[in-house]
């Protein structure tokens, strides 16, 4: 367990002991991580903020009984956060019948399409289109693969932490990642072939 994770748990404990500032510190330390996880599924910045807020509240409410128990093992708070962020995001997208970031990412991509050095505007637009298509493909991956890819690419977590968050072995996380990576790469290759 990393020092960072241990420190998070100490902050939760301090908050339960009455130190309100500790919880604000806990949120500040982890808000970037949670935002990175939920924004792929969010419609707009306010949507992402609401999802992030719900994630923190539910993670705390869910973890509180474990932290109040004097004995016994408990999962690190960060694991609760990651797990709940993934579940809330998935439910949010499913309930609304939309994978919103994917559709909005078309315009994100176009807005971000800056021609690389020596690359014309048309090539920039092609990249943006390919990027939008690939982000949609990420959301359509089987659940386990999607979660692993999201935790690796969006949250930039090591495989050991991905495995802990998903309750699977590190090897299983790597296998899911490999399947997803191959699938995404095939899509890119197929798109490139079509364009040529």
């Amino acid at each position, binding site marked *: 367990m990393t020092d960072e994770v241990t420190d998070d748990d100490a902050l939760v404990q301090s908050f339960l002991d009455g130190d309100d500032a500790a*919880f*604000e510190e806990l*949120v*500040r330390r982890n*808000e970037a991580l949670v*935002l*990175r996880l939920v*924004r*792929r599924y969010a419609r*707009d*910045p*306010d949507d*992402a*903020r609401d999802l*992030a*807020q719900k994630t*923190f*509240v*539910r*993670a*705390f*409410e*869910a*973890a509180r009984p474990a932290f109040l128990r004097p004995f016994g093992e408990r999962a690190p708070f960060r694991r609760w956060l990651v*797990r*709940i962020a993934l*579940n*809330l995001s998935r*439910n949010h997208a499913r309930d609304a019948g939309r994978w919103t*970031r994917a559709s909005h*990412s078309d315009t*994100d*991509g176009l807005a*971000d399409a800056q021609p690389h050095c020596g690359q014309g505007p048309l090539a920039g637009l092609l990249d943006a289109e390919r*990027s939008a298509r*690939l*982000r949609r*493909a990420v959301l359509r991956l*089987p*659940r*386990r*693969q999607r979660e692993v*890819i999201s935790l*690796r*690419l*969006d949250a*930039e977590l*090591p*495989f050991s932490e991905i495995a802990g968050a998903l*309750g699977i072995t590190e090897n299983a996380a*790597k296998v899911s*990642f*490999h*399947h997803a*990576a191959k*699938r*995404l*790469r095939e899509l*890119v*290759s197929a798109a490139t072939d079509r364009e040529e």
Partner: protein
Amino acid sequence: MTACTQLDPLIAQRASGPLDPADTLRLDAHLAGCERCRAELAAYEQTFGLARLPPPSEAERAAIAQLAVRVRAELRRGRATKPSWRPLVLGFAAAAAVALAVVVATRSGPSPSTTGGGGGAAVTASAWQEPDPEALLRVVEREHAELAIASEEPLDRAELIADAAWGKAFEEE
């Protein structure tokens, strides 16, 4: 030298982020002498570059600027207003005890009539409905439903089937 096929998973992992130091050494040693694997690494890096979201916009950063304060306020509000199931159960139990006492007192009284002066308590008793254990259970379940999402939620059957089918198709390729 390690075979290229054995290193393919490591190449994809490396393109997505840092590896363990031991794997980094092993892969670097191979990449130094293998042009094909260097091309593989570049292809994966391109794929993940396209799949990644752009960095958070100014609007996204502004939206979460007050997140810590908002979360703490919501937790406080939740603590102040969230009804706990324990008082509900205790309330039902107390009401049931009072109703039982009224019924017993009425039945053991001198007059069985419920139309006379002592009928008020009996009317109250007859209007009382036994608490429905199922309804109580639903209250408790509703209370905890919001937290159920936090539990180790297993993959549902449809998703397991999708995963298995995808894996099988992948292996057949």
